[in-house]
């Protein structure tokens, strides 16, 4: 029986959509995974000596201090990327298998996933280094086992929270607050958690607690699944209560309002697009890295423009690059309807412009870091509206990745969306404004630098119709290929 299950899993793995990419990408992915493991290994071995030399003679103390964040990030990471076992369990329900067996298999499967295994690449070498450096074996063993047990606790917790967005955003909020309080030296949560982690080292027998906890969570996950193992319970897909919204206030946009209304509904009612909004919100704070001067390499004056473009353009980049993929699920409908491409594009364009203006207003808190900081954001916004909005739509026309709107996964980017054409398009998006600013800045003053970038943005606006007609041509010439590509969902 187990052999059959494993066979199924192997096929699911090798035949999954992410493996159906070309060889070059496959090699790249293998390299990526390999390097990630190598980094973990390197960190495991190197962390001890690095911390000993640079920070504190007692590396374990420092590690224990930050473990709380390590485990919280692990949970977030798992939440986003790890697939839940129930997903492909449905076809097994009708077969003559014991339910306990299927549930057990589903949960065990999560245990051997990459998301748990790669921790071993950090903790095992780190523990070995600890022993080599003269820490007593028993204590290290206790600490080590406790850590691995905590990794598995995370694994089972993830099974519970996976379908509950509220829990997730609460966790994110808590991290942000704790991190912020720590940064400003108001309240240090690590003071309370570090002793717990150290306790596993000092009293190795305490490792039993997390091990038991992991075991209990396993039992709970098992029970939770077993009880909800019905099509109308745990395996049912959630049905949203629909809200109808006529959005009459958008009628003032005239003929494009048809699409605009649809796009707003698209964003409001789908997980994936909500994720995009959340991400573009985070981008607003990206500038803090630059303007607080916390990272030295970013101190060059033209980096301001770089920051300004990202702060105001978070939505523009994360949404715009996937036009028209947002409509991939019903692309055949659009292609057989009397669609006016220009209005279709214009609706997306207006959406990006509105979002950019909106973020620029929110970002006014950058004034706190001096007028230059906010000027960079405003100028970045002008450049985004004038030039980058066209560029992302143009680049998007070449991306043929279908988007599964109902899933929040993969929101952090998709390897298929990464190709030479889109890479080339980042030059005018980011490098050009930085160069323009640098010319003005070094030739005369920062004011001239800002002015030049803003003027470039305004000039870009003049080319809107030209760019739209180019994109329209691309849409038409790529239509059949796009239709085929969008069909290959999952």
């Amino acid at each position, binding site marked *: 029986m187990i052999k059959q299950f494993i066979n199924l899993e192997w096929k699911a793995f090798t035949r999954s959509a992410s493996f159906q990419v070309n060889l070059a990408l496959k090699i790249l992915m293998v390299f990526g995974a390999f390097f990630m493991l190598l980094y973990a290994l390197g960190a495991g071995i190197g962390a001890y000596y690095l911390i000993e030399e640079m920070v504190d003679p007692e590396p374990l103390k420092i590690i224990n201090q930050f473990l709380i964040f390590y485990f919280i990030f692990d949970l977030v990471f798992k939440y986003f990327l790890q697939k839940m076992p129930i997903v492909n369990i449905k076809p097994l329900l009708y077969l003559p298998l014991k339910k306990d067996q299927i549930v057990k298999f589903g949960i065990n499967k999560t245990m051997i996933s990459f998301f748990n295994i790669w921790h071993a690449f950090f903790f095992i070498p780190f523990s070995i280094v600890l022993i080599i450096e003269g820490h007593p074996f028993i204590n290290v063993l206790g600490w080590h086992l406790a850590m691995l047990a905590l990794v598995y606790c995370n694994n089972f917790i993830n099974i519970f929270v996976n379908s509950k967005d509220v829990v997730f955003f609460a966790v994110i909020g808590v991290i942000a607050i704790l991190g912020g309080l720590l940064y400003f030296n108001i309240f240090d949560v690590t003071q309370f958690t570090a002793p717990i982690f150290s306790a596993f080292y000092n009293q190795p027998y305490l490792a039993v607690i997390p091990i038991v906890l992991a075991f209990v969570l396993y039992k709970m996950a098992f029970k939770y699944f077993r009880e909800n193992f019905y099509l109308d319970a745990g395996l049912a897909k959630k049905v949203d209560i629909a809200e109808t919204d006529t959005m009459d206030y958008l009628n003032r946009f005239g003929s494009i309002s048809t699409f605009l209304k649809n796009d707003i509904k698209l964003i409001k009612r789908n997980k994936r697009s909500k994720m995009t909004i959340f991400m573009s919100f985070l981008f607003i704070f990206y500038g803090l890295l630059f303007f607080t001067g916390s990272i030295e390499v970013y101190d060059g004056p033209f980096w301001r423009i770089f920051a300004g473009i990202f702060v105001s353009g978070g939505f523009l980049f994360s949404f715009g690059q996937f036009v028209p993929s947002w409509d991939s699920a*019903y692309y055949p409908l659009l*292609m*057989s309807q009397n669609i006016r491409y220009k209005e279709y594009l214009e609706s997306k364009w207006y959406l990006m412009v509105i979002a950019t203006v909106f973020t620029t207003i929110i970002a006014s808190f950058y004034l706190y870091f001096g007028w230059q900081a906010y000027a960079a954001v405003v100028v970045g916004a002008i450049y985004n509206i004038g030039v980058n909005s066209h560029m992302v739509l143009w680049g998007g026309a070449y991306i043929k990745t279908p988007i599964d*709107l*109902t899933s929040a996964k993969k929101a952090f980017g998709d390897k298929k969306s990464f190709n030479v054409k889109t890479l080339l398009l980042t030059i005018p998006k980011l490098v050009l404004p930085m160069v323009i600013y640098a010319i003005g800045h070094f030739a005369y003053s920062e004011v001239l630098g800002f002015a030049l970038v803003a003027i470039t943005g305004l000039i870009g606006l003049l080319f809107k119709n030209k760019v739209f007609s180019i994109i329209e041509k691309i849409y038409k010439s790529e239509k059949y290929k796009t*239709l085929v590509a969008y069909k290959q969902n999952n």
Partner: protein
Amino acid sequence: MIITSNLSKTYNSNTVLKIDSLEIPKGQSFGLVGNNGAGKTTYFSLLLDLIQPTTGHIKNNNVLVNESEDWKPFTSAFIDETFLIGYLTPEEYFYFIGELRGQNKADVDALLTQFQDFFHGEILNQKKYLRDLSKGNQKKAGIVAALIGNPEVIILDEPFANLDPTTQIRLKEIIRDLAHKKGVTVLVSSHDLLHVTDVCERIVVLEKGHVIKDLETNPATLKELEAHFSGTAMAMQEEE
């Protein structure tokens, strides 16, 4: 209305459709039957310019489908769920299609009231998005959306599949009505021989991409079709 000439579609030397000549006059209710893989959906996709023909072309009301887009205003279709926008409620979807086809809200509402009994109270005002409706109800919404905006050509792929008996009967009335009274050219494909013979004036049988029968419907047609398809089944058994 629809003239097909020398049409073929080939994937890697595998010809899935080859129609030398087929003419569908205006106002005809036209049925396409055939086993899986016979080429029904391929033909409809070619008609909607969703795939490119390998050779030949289709003319829809004198518009060359694969070259001009002028057939779009008077042609509508429901092929599968990729014609539905999952995150809209049925009403929003109807209004959206309506706006694309130059109909205001009142026009769409007027049309929808005619389909109250077709919807059977399960489509409108349900507080559900299209993606959460059952397959049958999704199909109902898709079919009705294809009727918005007084199209002259309506293409429905497998419209009877997944529908409950009451709705099937009601749909047959609607299709007959469209063709006979309103002069709409209706193209329907189906696996259900009884339904097509009930509805269509003309039935074409496709097999492995070729037209092998082209029948005017009369009382004997059903028998003939049944004999044909059971003959295919017999032939297949003999081959085995």
